[in-house]
């Protein structure tokens, strides 16, 4: 266990980097989000937790342009970005990973890295090679950082599941986004890799990168995050430092509901259900 309870960083004041304001979204008759408001302070690691179906991924999708909000607003650094298309959101500085890791399988690992960098290359010539020497070096450094540089020439589909997670993290970082949204970075990977991923996130955060993490693994979230927000039935029911959230009766109620086993207290319930 490498997790510490040292989460002491300041909360999301005064001006949050990422903010949602009363975001609501319904799918047919199902209200996925109802007035969800979250804040992520610059330079922090924020966690977003909640039971299955509480709207975490939907909120991610709305922030990153993959779904449209019925109402409410999303702000990045004070700028309204509500319902912009994904490519715009990305170029404004929000990178994300997906719960089910999404890489480009028939391209090489290195080519995967180049895709995320291309939007910055303002060349008038469409036939220009992807990536200058500097961005190629940067891509290699990032692959090295996550530890899969030796697979750079291999097709991405040959990577293991854990390596794919690392690749997805690396290529999101290529574009140097202001904030990285991670959807279950520890889902379905072995414990030692979970520690590796947590270590990389800490290292990046120490260098100033902001994170918002959806995760079911409570040890991971509680050990890593400065601030945790809890979604239930589409709205935020609690927010604060991990220790405080963990003790919040509303959170326990949302997670445990009625008639749940006590041994789910550490939040392994979700991980058990979705880890597959």
């Amino acid at each position, binding site marked *: 266990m490498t997790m510490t309870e040292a989460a002491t960083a300041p909360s999301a004041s005064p001006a949050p980097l990422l903010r949602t304001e009363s975001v609501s979204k319904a799918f047919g008759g199902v209200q996925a989000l109802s007035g969800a408001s979250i804040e992520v302070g610059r330079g922090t690691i924020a966690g977003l937790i909640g039971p299955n179906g509480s709207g975490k991924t939907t909120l991610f999708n709305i922030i990153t342009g993959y779904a449209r909000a019925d109402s409410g607003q999303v702000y990045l650094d004070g700028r309204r970005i509500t319902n912009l298309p994904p*490519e715009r959101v*990305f170029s404004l500085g929000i990178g994300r990973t997906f719960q089910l890791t999404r890489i480009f399988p028939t*391209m090489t690992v290195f*080519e995967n890295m180049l895709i995320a960098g*291309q*939007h910055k290359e303002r060349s008038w010539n469409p036939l*220009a090679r992807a990536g200058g020497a500097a961005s*190629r070096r940067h891509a290699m450094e990032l692959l090295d950082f996550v530890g899969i540089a030796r697979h*750079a020439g291999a*097709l991405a589909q040959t990577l293991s599941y854990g390596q794919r997670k690392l690749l997805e993290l690396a290529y999101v970082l290529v574009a140097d986004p202001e904030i990285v949204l991670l959807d279950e970075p520890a889902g379905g990977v072995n414990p030692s890799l979970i520690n590796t991923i947590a270590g990389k996130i800490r290292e990046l955060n120490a260098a100033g990168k902001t994170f918002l993490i959806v995760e079911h693994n409570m040890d991971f979230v509680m050990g890593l995050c400065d601030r945790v927000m809890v979604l239930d039935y589409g709205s935020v029911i609690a927010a604060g430092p991990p220790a405080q959230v963990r003790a919040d009766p509303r959170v326990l109620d949302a997670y445990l509901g009625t008639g749940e086993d006590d041994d789910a207290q550490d939040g392994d319930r979700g991980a058990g259900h979705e880890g597959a």
Partner: protein
Amino acid sequence: MIASGLRFGGVAALLALGIVFPLVFTNPAVTSDAIYTLIFVAAASAWNTFSGYSGYISLGHAVFFGSGAYLTGIATLDWGLTGSQVFLLLPLAGLVGAIIAVPFGLIALRVRRHTFVVITIAIFFIFQLMAYNLQSLTGGTSGLLAPTVNFAAATYNNPFYYAALVIAVAAVAVSWLIRRSRFGLQLRAIRDDEDRARGLGVRTMRVKLGAFVISAVPVAMVGGLSWYFTGLIDPSSGFDPLFDVAVALMAFLGGLGTVAGPVLGALIIEPAQQYFQGQVSAGYLFLMLYGALFLVVILVLPRGVIPTAAEQIGKWRDKRREGDGGLAGHRLAAAGAAPDRAKELA
């Protein structure tokens, strides 16, 4: 390095062969087949530049072929052009193909996969119907006859041949340039996972439309050339549903999404088709052969000849390198060497 040297040598040899071919084989029946083959090399490469790289399978490229043919036909007859002058219309035909591709693409590229295929077929039939019905422009079912050409009989085919060769080489060159460019990277990202690509800042609509427009140009140009060489276009030959089937089959056989694949496919299929059409008086047998060949390709070589062969050669090379006493773990080469391999794979 050896591989790239071999590749360069192969391309140079093929190009030289293409240039001297009509000087060696002067039989007009042979050069005629060669012209149609080059037309399909151009068309299949251009089609692959869009459909192969992006994964959007178009069955509507005959729209560009027919439009290029009709544009060339109408302009030639209206302006009273003769002889080599007509070849100067071909860039114009390409431009018209590109212009038509813009609204076509804006409509069809809003949808994906099967729906996209159906929309391209629907738009194709709209164009065919227009060719049938806009009689004052297209001549209706009787079509447009090309004027008699007064080239010297012995080398009559040569101007057509070299025009087709230029378009084919240009189409393959563009395909190659795109394959190795940032634009090609974006297209292949769209093929693998379009939504993910958007999330990494790829402006997918712009990229798809750009490739669609570029791929229309050579197809429209060979359409115009085909009209002039064949001497006639009517709605059923200009807007021929089999055109896209043929072009797609060539790309699939050779290797969808590779530069060399469609070229190889066209070099195999088109001469074979010409041969069978010559042999069998009822020219419908080749349609059954098309169907059968499509089935065989999908069953036996779903990725096409080039990728399958490349994989086999790669395995063989790896094995031999291991046999030479090289490190068994050479695949895990130093990080610095890895991009080289990435280049090689591309």
